[in-house]
């Protein structure tokens, strides 16, 4: 689980990722733009005729005629995806658009993070835990009219786990030994070792089912089985989806949905206020939320994400290879001040790398309580020369930029002098996340579910190499007993907190602003998704 599901579309691609490069280079861009005018015209005609129809209805029904229900929705998101293929690129912005709306997997995440049946209506597990038999839904069709069958599942899983696969989460498929088609509606997956979390893994956006017929053009013309069909992508502006009339399951309640990309927080605020967008997922400026809350036209949904926001320290080089210095940083951090100053009070303090809403979470914030005097003493004990000059690299999201300024001020108070460098996503990825890991401190939110395992990778940008932790993580994949797993996860959290690997700041909240008449939006973000299948307008 190597992905930082960061908030940037371009953020997490790799050089060897043809899906990403191709998505930008090729594609029906000109076709799209030439269609825009036409579509607008059609929309206009449709609107006018709808309005006409509504007034006729109102006349015939007399005074009792209700206003026509709004059947379309415009959702604002901050980041535009680089392409629309979630199975071969790491950008979380892709999942935000297509997950569950256009593409579906064997299983799917519910709004509460639970794993529910998707294209597999049920599954059986063999007694040895090695074989999963998935019973597929019948009558499902891809948007191009082809049937969804067991061969598509085999194709998708084999493609994702192939040696030349560019899937960003190949670890999800690493345990698969073989995928076999039993009949068109049944498929068996054989694992190399028992894995109780296999249905969870199949719910990820990277594990959605794609069709071999449409795989070549998937980056710009995604063909899935979801409740919405892809309609058009105006690059730099929006993606439009229309209701899939042949959907196998509960149909979407909207006729069409447009996802508009607005990266600037000020513009996002203006767009919501003016009604240009009906809702905004993961609203980027928490300072504006009280205004929306005070306005009866809007509702503000505050949920949680899987995003553990941390002050990452480079454990691989001085001064943060010294645990005493890391501990000093941990005690210099004043979490309530950061949450108040950077997030305007939205956010839950965390003491380790684990989501507080998870039942296995242990509250370890007291291990790194705010104690500047202790910090100074620890720095003295560590024997570093003060002021200790370090580099703090900050990516664009406001939680990082603002949090960084506050953390820097707190560190200066104990004698650590961070030099702040604000960088763009691409630069952050090049210098900090990948390659040379040339950084001392950085702030980032890791929004993958259950991603504590990233600390077991010594090559990861934390440069944290602890065999005890690594063994614990590899044992964890083998253990299926729930109580034992829970104990191990708690142990893992404690190791990270006691090693002061990172400064653990807060759990990133999910803040959605929406028109008060919209229902069915996800409040929490168990994965990066803007699932619109249940969204509808109410009077």
């Amino acid at each position: 689980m190597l992905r930082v599901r960061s908030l940037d579309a371009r953020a997490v691609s790799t050089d060897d990722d043809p899906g990403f490069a191709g998505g930008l280079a090729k594609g029906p861009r000109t076709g799209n733009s030439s269609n825009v005018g036409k579509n607008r015209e059609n929309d206009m005609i449709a609107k006018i005729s709808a309005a006409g129809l509504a007034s006729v209805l109102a006349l015939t029904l007399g005074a009792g005629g209700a206003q026509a229900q709004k059947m379309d929705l415009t959702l604002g998101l901050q980041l535009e995806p680089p392409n629309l293929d979630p199975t071969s690129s790491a950008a979380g912005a892709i999942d935000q658009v297509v997950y569950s709306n256009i593409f579906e997997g064997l299983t799917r995440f519910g709004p509460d993070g639970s794993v529910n049946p998707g294209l597999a209506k049920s599954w059986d597990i063999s007694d040895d835990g090695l074989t999963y038999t998935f019973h597929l839904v019948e009558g499902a069709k891809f948007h191009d009219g082809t049937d969804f069958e067991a061969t598509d599942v085999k194709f998708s899983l084999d493609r994702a786990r192939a040696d030349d696969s560019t899937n960003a989460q190949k670890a999800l498929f690493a345990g698969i030994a073989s995928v076999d088609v039993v009949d068109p509606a049944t498929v068996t997956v054989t694992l190399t070792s028992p894995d109780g979390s296999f249905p969870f893994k199949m719910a990820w956006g990277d594990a959605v089912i794609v069709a071999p017929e449409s795989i070549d053009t998937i980056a710009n013309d995604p063909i899935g089985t979801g409740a919405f069909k892809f309609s058009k992508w105006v690059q730099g502006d929006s993606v439009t989806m229309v209701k899939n009339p042949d959907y196998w399951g509960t149909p979407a309640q909207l006729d069409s949905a447009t996802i508009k990309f607005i990266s600037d927080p000020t513009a996002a605020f203006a767009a919501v206020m003016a009604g240009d967008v009906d809702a905004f997922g993961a609203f980027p400026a928490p300072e504006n939320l009280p205004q929306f809350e005070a306005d009866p036209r809007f509702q503000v949904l505050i949920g949680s994400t899987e995003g553990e926001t941390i002050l990452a320290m480079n454990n691989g080089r001085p001064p943060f290879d010294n645990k005493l210095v890391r501990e000093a940083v941990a005690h210099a951090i004043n979490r309530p001040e950061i949450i108040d100053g950077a997030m305007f009070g939205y956010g839950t303090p965390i003491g380790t790398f684990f989501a507080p809403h998870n039942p296995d979470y242990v509250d370890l914030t007291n291990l790194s309580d705010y104690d500047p005097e202790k910090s100074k003493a620890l720095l003295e004990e560590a024997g570093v020369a003060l002021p200790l000059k370090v580099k703090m690299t900050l990516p664009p999201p406001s939680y990082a930029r603002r949090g960084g300024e506050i953390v820097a001020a707190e560190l200066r108070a104990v004698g650590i002098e961070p030099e702040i460098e604000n960088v763009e996503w691409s630069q952050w990825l090049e210098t900090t996340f990948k390659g040379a890991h040339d950084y001392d401190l950085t702030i980032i939110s890791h929004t993958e579910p259950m991603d504590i395992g990233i600390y077991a990778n010594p090559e990861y940008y934390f440069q944290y190499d602890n065999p005890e932790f690594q063994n614990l993580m590899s044992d964890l994949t083998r253990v299926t007993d729930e109580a034992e797993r829970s104990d191990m996860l708690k142990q893992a959290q404690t190791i990270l907190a006691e090693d002061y690997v990172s400064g653990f700041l807060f759990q990133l909240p999910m803040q959605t602003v929406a028109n008060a008449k919209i229902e069915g939006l996800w409040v929490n973000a168990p994965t990066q998704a803007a699932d619109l299948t249940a969204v509808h307008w109410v009077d």
Partner: protein
Amino acid sequence: MSEPSLSPAQTPSTLRIVLRSRSLILGLVLTLTFVAAALISFVWVPYDIATLDIANKIKGPSGAHWLGTDHYGRDIASMIMQGARTSIAVAVLAVGIGMLIGVPLGLWAAARRGSLLDEVIMRTNDLVFAFPSLLIAVMITSAFGPSATNAIIAIGIFNIPVFARLTRSSALSLWQRDYILAARVAGKGAARISWEHILPNITNMMIVQGTIQFSLGILAEAGLSYVGLGAQPPTPSWGRMLADSQTFISFAPHMALFPGLAILLTVLGLNLMGDGLRDLFDPKLRRGRT
């Protein structure tokens, strides 16, 4: 063909001079206010802006905080005073780079007018001049990393052709003068003539141009900081204060108003001062006055 345009009227031109010197005085007052604020900030500011006071964030102007506080609870008046330091330092150094390189280049080109060297110097300058300056400044700072130093270098580079071209054109006309001829007859070399006779005669013009470039430098620094390519936090900068205040503008307009006013008044002051100085130094107007 109306009458006043035919005869050089005495009264309006005197009036104009008075009006212009008024603008000079206003310009001087505004400029000196900000220079003073920057200088005072070295020894005293109302509040220490290195320590954040989150509990008192986004407070409007009051007795305790004359211009209110920002989103970290820092005193905006103190921020503007220290921000003036950043603005002035960047602009002074950038204009300095432009002058120190541009003026000698212009003098050299004028001394060797018509030669290949002249062509090379001036065409290179034209090349730099042809690019939109702020755009290239953005390129330089994003290529070499955002910092105040890189902002200074980027803005400085774009001041070079301004000074080189002005110097060369003024020097060329001076080279035609009789006293230059006399100096040449006396056996002085081109370098010595440029230093002893040309340079003193173009100084006024350089001061005027320097003032104008100084105000452009302050604007450029604010612009670069606004997009995050100028001085990095926690060094206060007017441009970044504006950028930071954007999402607060609907409920805390003071956060944007005061740094915005600071930029406006400083640039206005420098431009008024530059205009006033030009009129003061302009030989035609000087002749008109006597």
